[in-house]
């Protein structure tokens, strides 16, 4: 099983609504990263949160990290049709230099 696992696997919302997706991981980590992938394209880095941080913002993105629960969430506020994409979390553990990706959440934002 994977270090990072996203929930839900798919999400459909109306433009203007918020989208929340969660990521769980199994072992202690050094940082957790979120990436976006548009159809047919490579992954694009969105935000990185270190293990000693609890919350981080970047534009309409808000990421939280709860190391006691081994989970993270990504919130996209006031979603736009252009936010339609798959979102992946990736958990990094320095011991072993291992970055492990989850299976992704597919987000559809309907205009």
């Amino acid at each position, binding site marked *: 099983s994977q270090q990072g696992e996203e929930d839900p696997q798919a999400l459909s919302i109306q433009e203007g609504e918020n989208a929340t997706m969660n990521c769980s991981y199994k072992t202690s980590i050094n940082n957790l990263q979120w990436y976006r992938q548009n159809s047919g394209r*490579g992954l694009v880095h969105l935000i990185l949160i270190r293990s000693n941080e609890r919350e981080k913002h970047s534009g309409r993105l808000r990421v939280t990290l709860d190391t006691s629960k081994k989970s993270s969430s990504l919130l996209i506020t006031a979603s736009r049709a252009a936010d339609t994409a798959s979102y992946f979390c990736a958990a990094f553990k320095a011991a072993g230099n291992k970055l492990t990706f989850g299976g992704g959440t597919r987000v559809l934002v309907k205009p």
Partner: protein
Amino acid sequence: NAGVTQTPKFRVLKTGQSMTLLCAQDMNHEYMYWYRQDPGMGLRLIHYSVGEGTTAKGEVPDGYNVSRLNKREFSLRLESAAPSQTSVYFCASSIETLAMNSPLHFGNGTRLTVT
């Protein structure tokens, strides 16, 4: 500034054929990686390089060879393709080691089908 460029974009191979996937980055990054992406499984690391002339195995290295040709270029070779290698392959780079909180920059992928 092109970032990470992968060639080719698509390829169909017959079982047993060989091919080389090419990756080049123009960001002067030290670290380069090859991943494969399969439905529902996220990305899995095949091989990586921490600098020119160095390579190391990742999570799923069997059936693949890599070469770090110079600082810019990192190739992935399938010597004898198998249907299990049907996947989308992504090259990525980072300016520093991931332990320094350095994010990955990805290319747009090569979609490979092995029949």
